[in-house]
């Protein structure tokens, strides 16, 4: 069965060019970059080149790039590192729609005695900038606001956000895991102090991430150990993965503008096709600026997990913010924060496209999805009643 993989916000296929670039670093150039011999020196050089490529993708300086193990580590290192570096300040501002890597730190920080403000979003998932302005105080140590939302693809106006925060002299972190590689991220123009990104969202492998730390930003080290990463993150460098990430960043930079237009074309075709063919569908964040590859929609009267499993039977891979898929009993906190009714949120499905998706695949989904939704609606006790109500 052919696999139609449309879950690229969850993870991406490693680009074969990236794999090719990585392989020698397992078997030939296996040195420790800290070693004083030729094998070590080669590894060190490869790490330096990869750092350069990642810096170019973000338009940053190589010494501002710290390699980590994943996006979650980057988010933890940023938030806890900044708070520890200014222990006198006890207030943090973030949003209600962050990724769990940030969001789930909130109860922990509150337990540690921090005050945390969670900014509101509107029905389209747009940030309330007035709420942001009003929340900043002299006690605010850090503002952490994501660049683009993983579930809905809604992009926050990060330049405006960063300016508001920096005007108050407050440290600003952004989780840009979903933005990097999908839309331009230029850190020479964007006044953020810290930025998290992840390799496996841009066709590098899982297990490698980056924390960008702007020169002069005070951050306590998260992983204490050797002198690696200028003492900001101890631990022997994961050389093959760093090399892979460098290659992925290079490809991403070369293809970004062309690729984002192509993906937006496919996404729009999918979106319009669904709305044309299937009644009672809501597109989440329709009125907001969104990532070109992401379509999140709610199929009313249908439960998301059932929909995903029937799609999966046809080889189509997507994800859902329904309660059942996560093992929790509540639907996605992001959709709830947007005020999407529970009745619709349980039927949410996210299609996220990537480099290897084709137009034929979009057509295949459009051919098969309406039948699956209809089949589940026929089983549902509410669908028929809705029909009766509209007849009456």
């Amino acid at each position: 069965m052919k696999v139609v993989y449309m879950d690229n916000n969850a993870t991406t296929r490693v680009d074969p060019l990236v794999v090719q670039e990585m392989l020698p670093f397992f078997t030939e150039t296996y040195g420790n970059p800290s070693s004083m011999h030729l094998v070590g020196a080669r590894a060190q050089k490869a790490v330096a080149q990869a750092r350069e490529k990642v810096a170019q993708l973000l338009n940053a300086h190589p010494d501002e790039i710290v390699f980590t193990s994943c996006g979650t580590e980057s988010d933890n290192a940023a938030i806890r590192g900044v708070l520890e570096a200014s222990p006198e300040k006890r207030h943090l501002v973030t949003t209600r729609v962050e990724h769990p890597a940030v969001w789930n730190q909130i109860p922990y920080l509150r337990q540690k005695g921090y005050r945390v403000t969670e900014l509101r979003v509107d029905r389209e998932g747009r940030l309330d900038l007035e709420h942001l302005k009003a929340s900043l105080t002299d006690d605010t140590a850090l503002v952490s606001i994501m660049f683009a939302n993983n579930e809905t693809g809604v992009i926050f106006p990060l330049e405006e956000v960063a300016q508001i925060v920096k005007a108050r002299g407050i440290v600003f972190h952004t989780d840009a895991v979903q933005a990097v590689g999908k839309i331009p991220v230029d850190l020479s123009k964007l006044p953020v102090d810290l930025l998290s990104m992840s390799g496996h969202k841009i066709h590098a492998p899982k297990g490698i991430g980056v924390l960008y730390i702007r020169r002069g930003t005070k951050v306590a080290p998260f992983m204490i150990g050797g002198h690696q990463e200028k003492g900001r993150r101890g631990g022997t460098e994961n050389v093959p993965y760093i090399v892979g990430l460098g290659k992925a960043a290079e490809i991403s930079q070369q293809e970004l503008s062309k690729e984002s237009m192509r993906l937006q074309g496919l996404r729009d075709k999918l979106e319009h096709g669904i709305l044309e063919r299937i009644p009672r569908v809501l597109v989440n964040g329709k009125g907001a600026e969104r990532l070109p590859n992401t379509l999140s929609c709610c199929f009313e009267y249908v439960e998301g997990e059932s929909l995903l499993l029937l799609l999966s039977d046809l080889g189509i891979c997507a994800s859902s913010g329904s309660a059942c898929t996560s093992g929790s009993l509540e639907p996605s906190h992001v959709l709830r924060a947007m005020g999407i009714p529970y009745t619709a949120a349980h039927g949410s499905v996210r299609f996220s496209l990537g480099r290897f998706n084709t137009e034929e695949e979009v057509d295949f989904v459009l051919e098969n999805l309406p039948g699956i939704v209809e089949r589940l609606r026929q089983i549902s006790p509410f669908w028929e009643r809705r029909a009766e109500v509209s007849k009456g």
Partner: protein
Amino acid sequence: MWEYTEKVMDHFRNPRNVGVIDDADGVGEVGSMACGDALTLYIKVDQQGRIKDAKFQTFGCASAIASSSALTELIKGKTIEEALKITNQDIADYLGGLPEQKMHCSVMGREALLAAIANYKGQSRESLASPLVCECFGVTQEEIERAIRENGLTTREQVTHYTKAGGGCGSCHERIEEILARLKKEVPVVALPAQRRLTNLQKMRLVEETIERQIRPELQKDGGDIELVDVEGNRVMVSLRGVCTGCPSSNITIKGIEQKLKEMVSQDLVVEEVRQ
């Protein structure tokens, strides 16, 4: 990704008895769209009080649809009295088991059955008169108590997995703990009749429950602890922890554990200690 059995996937992909019985003798509606799953069960009962047809409509995940389908298969041809004896565990067993976090789907089936039978008898559902414990998911005290009794639940997390109660805002956690503490005193572990043949799954579950509810608390009183390592046929392998480790009387302890398990689960069990 959930690990669903082939049987669950089969009943999800090809649900049996979907639909409405227009002249149903009993209708049971449970759940709501806001809660994420809902089931309407229709039954047709003949003059001898036998369920001759059952149909359902379900909004929910794969295990909710499969549980509803299994329920209708289980009750068809049974008398009302027989059907009343079907527990949520029977629904789960019919499907070859459900992930614990999805057990509430089997409980939803059981609740719909009770509702449909009450409706057939012209009674109002007792559980509706019972006080509401979980407001987020509309779960009553009686529903929670029934799930605890019938499934031998011991922790609040289990109650949430089985009934959804406490899975929302969390403000009812204390009340659920109170119910658990109260029932723990009054109800012994669900003792099965000795002659009943146990499936492997039932045996393992009972061994686990007996250890959790009866053996572990005793050992913990003395600063020890026990871990169930494996069950292979009738061999139950455990490892002792805390002060029990290397305790000269651990042989005696093992014999005591074996005695208890024989009494509660099956006379054929042999307990072995695994040293790690």
